[in-house]
């Protein structure tokens, strides 16, 4: 049962004759609990695809359906609320809020939604990601790997339908990259989370259940959907 579906998704920039087709008719399905990696060269359209999947940007045409909700039908406010409840993001640049400490950053989407964090659940994530002793640290007191772990914890804390990760190890060394991705995969499988990971690194992509190749805004290979 797909939790994420795109139909004929296109995103064009500029006007003819200088039109740039960042996405050009992408059809994609991701099942619940699946870990999918989208691989492509720089400028292939993979980040644009992720932005569309997360409702951060609006498509030129086509539809994105997340957990039976069509994103293009939603207004800005509605979409933002949907995003904080259903989508967790992990960015290359971590994007932690500099004036909030580790714990506050992790539970931020939950608090923005007016809810109380599921403390045992959040603590479990924090422990699994090895941040147990860094609760009160500020982002500028953490290493790159630690900051990305906080970002992963934040993405998982609200128990979203889907986690979108955009080059999460782009700023990390090999060893740290492996640790972080290992932590992401482990926590996601533990909590049956769906993950879409964007990367240009084949090796990293091999950690996923399925690898999708994208080139010039079109999907070239969809991999094998696990049964």
């Amino acid at each position: 049962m797909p939790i994420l579906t795109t139909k004929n998704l296109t995103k064009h920039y500029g006007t003819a004759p200088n039109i740039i087709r960042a996405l050009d008719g992408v059809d994609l399905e991701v099942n619940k609990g699946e870990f999918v990696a989208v691989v492509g060269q720089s400028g292939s359209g993979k980040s644009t695809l992720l932005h569309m999947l997360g409702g951060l940007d609006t498509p030129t045409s086509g539809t994105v359906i997340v957990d039976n909700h069509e994103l293009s039908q939603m207004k800005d406010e509605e979409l933002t609320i949907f995003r904080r409840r259903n989508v967790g993001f992990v960015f290359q640049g971590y994007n932690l809020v500099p004036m909030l400490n580790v714990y506050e950053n992790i539970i931020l989407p939950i608090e923005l939604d007016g809810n109380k964090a599921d403390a045992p659940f959040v603590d479990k994530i924090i422990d699994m990601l090895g941040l147990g002793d860094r609760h009160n640290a500020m982002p500028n007191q953490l290493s790159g790997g630690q900051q990305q772990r906080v970002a992963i914890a934040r993405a998982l804390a609200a128990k979203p339908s889907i986690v979108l990760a955009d080059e999460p190890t782009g700023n990390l060394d090999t060893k740290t990259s492996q640790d972080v991705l290992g932590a992401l995969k482990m926590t996601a499988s533990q909590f049956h989370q769906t993950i879409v990971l964007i990367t240009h690194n084949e090796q990293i992509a091999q950690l996923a259940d399925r690898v999708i190749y994208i080139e010039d805004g079109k999907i070239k290979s969809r991999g094998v959907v696990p049964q």
Partner: protein
Amino acid sequence: MKNNNTKIIRKITSRTLRANTRRNIFIAIAIALTAFMITSVFSIGLSFYESIRLSGFRFEGIYSHASIMGLTHEQLETLEGLSYVRRVSHSGLVGSAKLPGHEHGVTMFYTCPGTWRHFQTPVFTNIEGRNALAQNEIVLSRAKLSRMGIHQPYVGMEIPLEFTDSLPTHSKTFILSGFYTEFVSTLGGGTPIFVSQAFAESHGLVIAEDTNVNVQFTSFTRANELTRRLANDLGLSEGQYYAAHPAFTRGMDSNPLFTYMIMSVFVAFFMFTGFLLVYNVMYASVSKDVRLYGMLKTLGTTPRQLRRIVNGQVLRLLYLGIPAGLAAAALVSFVLVPAFMGNIATGVVISFSPLIYIGGAMFTLLTTYLGAFTSARKAAQVSPIESTKYAGELAANIKVARSSANGRPHRMAWRNAFRERKRAIIVLISLFLGVTVFTTTVTIVGSADVDNEINYWYDFDFVISGDLDTQICDDFAAQVASINGVTAIHRSTFSMGHIESKMLHGSVYGVDTAWLLEIDPNIANYVDIAAFERGETALRSDRWIRFHETNPGSAFADMHASSEDLPIGTVVELSLSTDQGTSWFTTYVEIGGPIRRVTPVGVGLFYFSFGAPGRRVELLMSNNFLNQHHAPVYRLGVEVRRGADSYVNSALNSILPHGMSVTSTYEARRASEEGMFTLFVMGIGLSAILGIIGIFNFINVIAVGLYVRKRELATLESIGMTKRQMRAMLRWEGAIYWIAIIFASLIAGPGIAYGLYYVVSNQAPTQFPQFVYPLLPIGLVYGVIIILCTITPEIAYRGISKLSMVERLREVE
């Protein structure tokens, strides 16, 4: 979708607030300045206005909105029943009493019982006792008691008086029921003796026909309009004179709409300046934090929540700024108001109206919200994707010249300076306003010519005058003439005059013919000087007439003669008081003139409130003629040697007898100079505030502009732009600002300054005879702006270039 997320929004708001200390200081200052300016201007203005109005009432001796003379019984009854009339007081002449120490008879007036409480106590001070109620009770001013030799009066004191009414002289011992300090012009003789209505009735005085009626309306702001309505409703006939109180027919009260417009312009101006700063600083702050807002939005912060975060920061700064601004305004009102208005003899009213402070706070709140609104909207509309790449705004339609010169610093600067066009324009407007207010102030102050004004209004260096009872005797005149530094003295006589056929009454002043020729050599061309000397020609003063003609439609102006009442060349029968006011004689004079004035000292308006019916006029006759009829010398003009002002001033004050006063060009010059200084300080203060706002804005635009362009500048350096080239580019960016401000100021500045000069010089042509555009101070201000615009980008660049280029490139990634 409603949920309780107040806590986290509060947390983000307060943390964001804490992370922006410098910005917070700017905004708090902007808020405080706005609150301070709105509140203090209105508070000081209201105090000043109320003090001046109180002064008007106190000089007149009655708190009345309008006066009518000679009403019938029926009219009086109608008057009391009018819906817009709150209170009516009536009073009337009973007779004249001989008081010890007073050479002339002092008029006795009765007042109705309600007059004291509502019409008289507001204008007297140091009141002891109460009004006269019983037949034998009497109320006197301290000045009169003092002249009678009673320096320590008490309520219940016996006052024996000789008085006359329509019957022969009576003697009666009155009981002093009250006494007070008055401010009524001494030349008019001060307030009369007040007796009770019961006393008046016992002497057969009827209430109507012979009485003066004073009226208080339900709304004093419409006194002028209601006075005319009242005249209509009562069907006043000729001879039943009426007038609104001058305090309501002049200045603010005469035209409330205009007053409100002026007030609105002030509020709008201060709100605009406050808005400029709050808007710019907040907008700069949001631009700086655009990545943060984008990130928050990515994580699920809704546009509404983002607006709350931005507005919440401003709201917290309001808690700080508004009380600070209001406190400063209160302090200034209580300290500066008495200092500025200390020379108002009738006392200063310090107005502490809570409404002004509430209004000041509300307008500041509105200003701040308007200023923060756009920034909050910007934060709410931030695109999560765009925010990560944000590097300042690019003006949409800057033409990119395709030439090899684009790498030159000035070309690059030109494109950079107006990237954020809206903010750049606001910086230019605020700095331009600061410079313009400054140039206008120095122009007005520079164009003022105190000497010219003094020479116009004052014929003598010193004028000594007394009241009707204080004749200036020859001994005193000789004493004045012997003071070291006095070069000449001129006597003026005084007589009361009445032209029966025209129902005109007023003052007749006597002058030496030689002196008249001295101050106006052309007068011989249109006045028969020999006839003037013989008393066959009286010159008409145009002081009241000008008031009549420049205020057509004003109820007060109707009290004054117009040029049609007394045309030049007509021969009239003039009754003059003689033998020190004890008898009258009649003579025929031809009306000559007109002349611009006869005395720098106004006659008290009291005459009109309690005096005889008729229009007012002033005439000038020769001393020679009036002397023949024993008219008293009431005024002494003194000319002094240059530089002897200060000495003569103190010498005169030391020999001045009781009941006389001295006015001098020396004091007038000092007062005028003080007034100009006050104007200068206020103008410079205002331009400094505007200038500071402009400078804050400029620093902010440059500093934040460079901050968001950090990566771009690091990139420029990485591809080979030297620090020298970088600095040159930034200097050019500053130069574009100063060139624009100075250019705009040179184009518009003189026009605006001349416009304002034109307005003030029309009001006071003698004070502002010539337009002077002071180049030196304006040049200095231009210099300050050039220095500021040059060094600010330099300092800001130093701030961001402390880190190495690689670190800067990495930091923003």
